[in-house]
């Protein structure tokens, strides 16, 4: 048995990649350039695909390979390309201008990560399976952290494109949760979710474009005429 066939090695690799995913999420909160943000999202999705295929390899599970391939194609390549083209086409200022300043945002993200570990504790307690079947269970707190930080990004960002990115990274958290808890949803559900995400991003891209045309800005805090 070579060293990479040992589930122990797989577990370490998964932990490493999950840590990187979390670091990338906090990078997205911390840095100010929109294009970097999109690239961080692309790398994050790439790492998720790697985690999924690692789990698929050790469990010899075909449907996780399919989910991993789809993640790679859509979230790591196609969606970032769509978003980059959108950003360059509408020539917006490249800075993000959050409502909450960067140091405070990072501190809040840290607290949310802590909260995620607390929430995941009771769920993880029952899942100490040995060997390959227990792979990836320790990524659940990371998944919940991605979910919570994604929510925080949604409410703390002004620009429409960054809200879309936040929604997508939140969705990445859900993908990781599904992989770590149940080794992915059934294939048909997974396909449906991918289809929905793809269509949603296209619709949102069109909306962003039209908001930019109409308001001459992408600042969603200007969308405030409907009240009461």
């Amino acid at each position, binding site marked *: 048995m070579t060293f990479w066939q040992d589930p122990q090695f797989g577990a370490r690799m998964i932990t490493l990649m999950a840590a990187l995913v979390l670091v990338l999420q906090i990078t997205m909160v911390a840095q100010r350039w929109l294009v970097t943000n999109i690239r961080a999202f692309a790398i994050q999705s790439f790492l998720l695909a790697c985690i999924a295929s690692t789990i698929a390899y050790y469990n010899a599970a075909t449907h996780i390979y399919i989910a991993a391939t789809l993640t790679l194609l859509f979230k790591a390549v196609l969606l970032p390309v769509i978003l980059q083209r959108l950003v360059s086409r509408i020539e917006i200022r490249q800075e993000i201008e959050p409502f909450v300043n960067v140091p405070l945002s990072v501190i809040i993200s840290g607290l949310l990560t802590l909260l995620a570990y607390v929430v995941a504790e009771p769920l993880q307690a029952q899942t100490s399976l040995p060997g390959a079947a227990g792979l990836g269970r320790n990524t659940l707190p990371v998944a919940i952290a991605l979910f919570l930080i994604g929510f925080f990004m949604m409410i703390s960002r002004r620009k429409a494109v960054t809200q879309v990115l936040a929604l997508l990274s939140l969705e990445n958290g859900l993908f990781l949760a599904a992989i770590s808890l149940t080794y992915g949803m059934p294939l048909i559900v997974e396909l*449906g979710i991918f289809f929905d995400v793809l269509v949603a991003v296209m619709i949102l891209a069109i909306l962003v474009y039209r908001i930019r045309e109409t308001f001459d800005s992408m600042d969603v805090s200007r969308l405030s005429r409907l009240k009461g």
Partner: protein
Amino acid sequence: MTIPLLLLIPLAASGITALARGRRALELIHILSALAGFTASLLLAAGVLANGQTSWGNGFLFADHLSALVVLLTAFVYLACAPYAIGYFRTDRINQAFGPDEDGSVQLAKIRKYYVLTPLFAFSMFLVALSNNLGVMWVALEGTTLTSIFLVTFYGRPTSLEAAWKYAMIGGAGLSMALFGTILTYYAAGQVLGTESLSALNWSVLAGSASKFDHTVMRLAFILILLGYGTKAGLAPMHTWKPDAYSEAPAPVAALMAAAVLNCALYGVARFYVLTVRCLGPSFASQLLILFGILSIAIAVPFILVQRSYRRLLAYSSIDHGGIMVLGLGFGGALGPLGMLLHMTFHSVTKPLLFFCAGNAQQQTGNDSLRRTPGGLLHSLPVSGPVFLLATLAVTGTPPFSLFQSEFTILRAGIAAQHVGLSILFVTLLVAIFAGFFYHIAQLVLGPPSDYPQGETCRWKTYPVIGLCALVLLLGFWLPAPLYSLISGAAGVLAVHP
């Protein structure tokens, strides 16, 4: 065979309208598809009443009394909106709502969008009610958002973009919570059933073994589902997208969203409610449902009392009714689910009528303001004006209209469950809503003649109003026996068996 047929009809209608040429062809196909859809839903309901639950494709799609009822109501609202939409968009052309349009090509492009997207919207709603797999149900509910975003931006005003953005973002965030809840349910089920097969997410399988699920996981899952699908149903405090989307969308779209999507979202909550109750016992889920129900009714009160626009007024009424249904489910017992489903049925008939009257009034007067109105709509709209007032009485639950019966049933369920204080609060809030709602609409409808254009503009807009009004009056006195047995069968699905 009716189950796949129900899904194929709207899909086919959407495909054909994408290719059809003239305006009349679009309208004809739409009406025919709505008729076919309603007939199929009647057949499904009859089949379920005769033979119990049916399934198709190895249990992938399935229908019991509850699904059949929701499908029937969705198909009914879709059918009611079909002729109304024809008149509504024809009037838009006359009013030049789409800007200068000499040969009608602008209008054709606009209404093609409506006639292509609305059947897809209906398709997603049918799929919500018919899918056995809870993951597919989530995909379909997300589909209802995606297919309706461009219907909200229909008029392309800055405010419609704002409404659509809020709708997409709040809806997207909410549904992601529901997906998390679904994943957790799958996890809880996987510990008992194994996750190897697709059926581990099938409701009919889960319902049988829910008592063995892990309690912590199910508790978290239900909270996330209630927040998620509650956002879609517009329960407070996740309701903020609703007034914007309902006031910006064309009236037939708003009617579909208020009467049909609401049912589908609550259907999602109800399915998970059954699983949670079987796992944890009734008290946990009931307390949460009662909390969100009362909160939604209470939050509607101040906004209805000081409202400036009648389209938004209807949206707050819809939040209120969503709250009433959830409250009914939360009270539980034998009467609670029955009250909820009766309310759902009566609401699905009455709400479209209100939206049609409001749409007619808006097209006649050119605005939907309650402040700048000189009143006297009664004189310029001899049919829709008085019916608007009547529908207001019906929707606020005044006797003898049917919504009074269902609200009374929910009240009895509350008292039977010994929530006396809450029941009194419930009635007080309903009275406040009645007062505000009736005051506003009476100001609008009654009064001396004003200088608005006289007469109904298009008979396609008047006939649906007359038809629905007759039905609302009829339902106040007579509930057909097969419909009642369908409703009570559906309530049986939701009833708690300790």
